[in-house]
């Protein structure tokens, strides 16, 4: 793995650290283009894991780490086909994104999400697959899916439940409120909070430290303490697809897509 630059993301390797940078405006929304490129990245990552010890995922976009799934694309595509075909397409898309997320989650590399700004929905779920989250103090997190009549679909609930308490998951999921880094660190979701613009630097410093440890030991420790909740992840896909057939979802997506706000992230 040497590196590559796509339309939505790029990656490079230096000193045993793989850096995956998201760079799709306005806020790295994950649609088909990003998914295609993530799959290529995963394939390249798996081919070369022996030569690296850490992976950092970060964003080059000013507005934030990632605003989640590309809801405009989802709405546009689902409008052009039958309901049945739309649900089938969503299931396929979720299956693909879950394979990407599971691959990062289970990677023998130690993985770090360096986040800033908007880290919402699928963006938060992408951060949650990483072993460590290092956050710029202005980062903001949210599971906004319930306002669309859906649940998070990229594995967020099983992973948050694995890593934190069930009460915390209920609070964040059922209220859909956004929260800051103080709260995120308080609940144990974020491991380090750093000054504005410092997340990537701090992640690189952490990755350099990780390079001092024996890789086999670090990988064994990770495998021991971080099981992948495959059964619950599959249940999540099933529940998401069931909910997706309801009229409330179409209404929620329509409301979002037709919003005149340039950044309709707030509830």
């Amino acid at each position, binding site marked *: 793995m040497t590196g590559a630059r796509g339309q939505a993301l790029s990656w490079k390797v230096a000193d045993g650290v793989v850096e995956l940078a998201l760079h799709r405006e306005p806020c790295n929304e994950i649609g088909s283009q990003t998914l295609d490129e993530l799959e290529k990245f995963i394939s390249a990552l798996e081919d070369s894991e022996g030569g690296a010890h850490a992976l950092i995922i970060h964003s080059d976009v000013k507005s934030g780490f990632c605003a989640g799934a590309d809801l405009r694309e989802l709405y546009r595509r689902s409008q052009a086909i039958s309901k049945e075909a739309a649900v089938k397409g969503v299931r396929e898309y979720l299956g693909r994104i879950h394979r990407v997320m599971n691959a990062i989650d289970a990677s023998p590399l130690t993985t770090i999400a360096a986040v800033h700004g908007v880290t919402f929905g699928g963006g938060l779920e992408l951060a949650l697959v990483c072993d460590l989250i290092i956050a710029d103090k202005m980062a903001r997190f949210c599971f906004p899916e319930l306002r669309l009549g859906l649940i998070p679909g990229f594995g967020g609930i099983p992973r948050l439940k694995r890593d934190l308490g069930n009460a915390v998951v209920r609070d964040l999921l059922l209220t859909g409120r956004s929260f*800051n880094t103080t709260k995120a660190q308080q609940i144990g979701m974020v491991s380090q909070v750093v000054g504005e613009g410092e997340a990537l630097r701090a992640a690189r410093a952490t990755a350099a430290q990780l390079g001092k440890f024996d890789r086999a030991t670090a990988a064994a420790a990770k495998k021991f303490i971080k099981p992948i909740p495959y059964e619950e992840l599959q249940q999540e896909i099933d529940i998401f697809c069931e909910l997706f057939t309801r009229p409330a979802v179409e209404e929620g997506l329509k409301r979002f897509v037709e919003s005149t*706000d340039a950044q309709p*992230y707030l509830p």
Partner: protein
Amino acid sequence: MGITTSNQTLDEILALAAAHFKVPREKLTADDDFFKTLGIDSLQALDLLTKLEHHFHVELPDYELQGVSDFRTLASRIQARL
């Protein structure tokens, strides 16, 4: 430690908003619509919310701020959590 008054909270919000969005402090008044006066969108409003939470050491659920667009009401919401 003294008790933070509502006026004091309001003054601190106005000063913080002016500094963060690089607007002269004297141009901001309590009843201004901050979206219009500061010329900000919802993403920048989210930034302001984060700044205010850090400054006042409070948590402000965004659903409590739905429909709030003036500094005075914002101050009262923050005051209620101090």
